[in-house]
């Protein structure tokens, strides 16, 4: 009877200690989870901001402005060549 009581108390103490240790670990984990959550939110915000910047930088209006500033013309000179005509013949002879 006594032995059983001692065993029971021992098990209870071990379980209590285990619970305390586990809870302490969880407290740490919670902090870590919070940190990861914050990091995820920050990364989401950064991605969102980056997407916005990429979209803005790759908009046709921006591309057009840059292209013009780099010397590209808006109206390309297109020359259509007859299929029987040699390209070389189009070059003026000096």
């Amino acid at each position, binding site marked *: 009877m006594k032995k059983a009581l001692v065993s029971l108390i021992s098990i209870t103490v071990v379980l209590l200690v285990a619970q305390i240790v586990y809870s302490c670990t969880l407290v740490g984990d919670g902090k870590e989870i919070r940190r990861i959550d914050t990091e995820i939110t920050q990364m989401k915000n950064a991605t969102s*901001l980056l997407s916005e910047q990429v979209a803005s930088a790759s908009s*046709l209006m921006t591309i057009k402005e840059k292209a013009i500033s780099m010397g590209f013309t808006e109206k390309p000179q*297109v020359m259509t060549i007859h299929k029987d005509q040699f390209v070389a013949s189009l070059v003026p002879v000096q």
Partner: protein
Amino acid sequence: MWRIWFVFSLFILLVVGIIARLFYWQIISGYHLKAEAAAQYKLELLIPAERGSIMTADGYPLVMNKSASLVYAEPKQIENTKTFSELVSKILQMDAASVSAMISDSSKMWSPILHKVDDEKIQQLKALNLKGLGFEKEPKRYYPESSMAAQLLGFVGLDQNGNDVGYFGLEGYYNRELQGKAGSLTIEKDVTGAPIIVGETTRIEPENGSTMILWLDRTIQNIVEQKLSEGIVKYGAKEGSVVVLDPKTGGILAMASYPSYHPGQYGAFDRELYKNPIVASQYEPGSTFKALVMGAAIDKGLIKATTVFDEKGPVDVSDYTIRTWNNEYHGSISMTQVLEYSSNVGMVYVEKLLGRDNFIKFMKDVGLGVPTNIDLEDESSPEIRSDRDWKEIDLATASFGQGIAVTPLQMIRATAAIANGGWLMEPHMVQKVRSANGREIDVKPKKIRQVVSSATAQVVTEMMTAAVDNGEAKWAKPKGYRIAGKTGTAQIPVAGHYDDKKTIASFVGFAPADKPRFVMLVTLREPSSSQWGSETAAPLFFTIARDIFLYLGIPAQL
């Protein structure tokens, strides 16, 4: 003995009364009481879902979300109401008195000041370090291409509860798919309303909205918008629209109207501009309708492209006289020449051959009188007469596109059937729907019916090509390309009669004629430089087509 029974009955009544009361509180009012109790100890916060983007076929966003915030005040914590109002209103460009009114009620825990404020202003407000001023993330719509495709996109406004709702265009049509499903956070609160940290917390994650991937090509859309606004100025038109469609799929490659608005500042524009005229307005198609009627008669085997008609003068129908547009008559001409000369008299001949029933059936087959089912919110369809109401003169004028009304989309779809071997397609804006978890669902092209045979479509294509090569607009056609098309100049009905001076000039066509890559319809309302489609809408069509050829890499055949 009776006293025992009396007491017993009283007890029975008491028990019944208690049971009835318990039934009332627990069964009838149970749900309501539970909710009331929960409201006392639970705090429920909505976690808004992020609205989906709208992308072009080439992967560029036309609409996406931008970081912004709700600016709110906590009146109890504000130290100096006057200074607070002045500083905040200055940055938010609001009236100081309005801000002051919002924060004057100190019994309020929380008072919203302005929704969807840009990050730049938020940083300025944060720098003030004001007590009682708070911010909450609240993304807003961002348009990287500015006002491009405004009328087909629609805009996002607020409903009566202050929630984001899409109105008009794609935002309206796909509002449910784009908005997603808001999540919630339920936490236990104490008597002061503050959350209990160790209390029970239930979090339901929001489901973000889906992204719509369109058939729309950003470059073609840009070409169309740029050339349309130039064309409006050049030809002095009041309004104009251009729609470009892929005949094989029914996908809309570009769609633009003038005047338009900016969806990000929709409040600053006239409400009349919100509706997309390509799907919501109606007009009389005029001569652009002739090619379709010709197709119906060829399909029935009643005429051939070479059938000769004697165009000797005006023709009388009922009490009316029908003339050609320039009152010139060419004697014996083929059906191809009827299209080239755009002969109204010739079309009346074709209509007579086709007969009342065939003609009415054909108009229904090409989709007149019913919406096209395009995935845009504002679509309407002008009604066509009931079968018994068609008089002889109505049928005669309808053969050259007067006296019937269509939307520009109905007109281009019907012409696209000629470019697609006679098959009428359902027009579509969205090509794919990408859910928040990355799963893509294709929206398959939908064939409606074959309105003419493939052989007929080929013959009509050749006739339309001849109409471009030899018609009134041949001077503007890009060299080396086979383009099938037809000009149209329809008078505008005003108070029961047609106004000679007011016209809707249009051109519908497709190219390259042998293997069409696109069908395009250009309409200009009341052009002032010339009232004729051949001198306004047709050259604009060819100008746009020239740029599309370059973009798609379609070489000229010399």
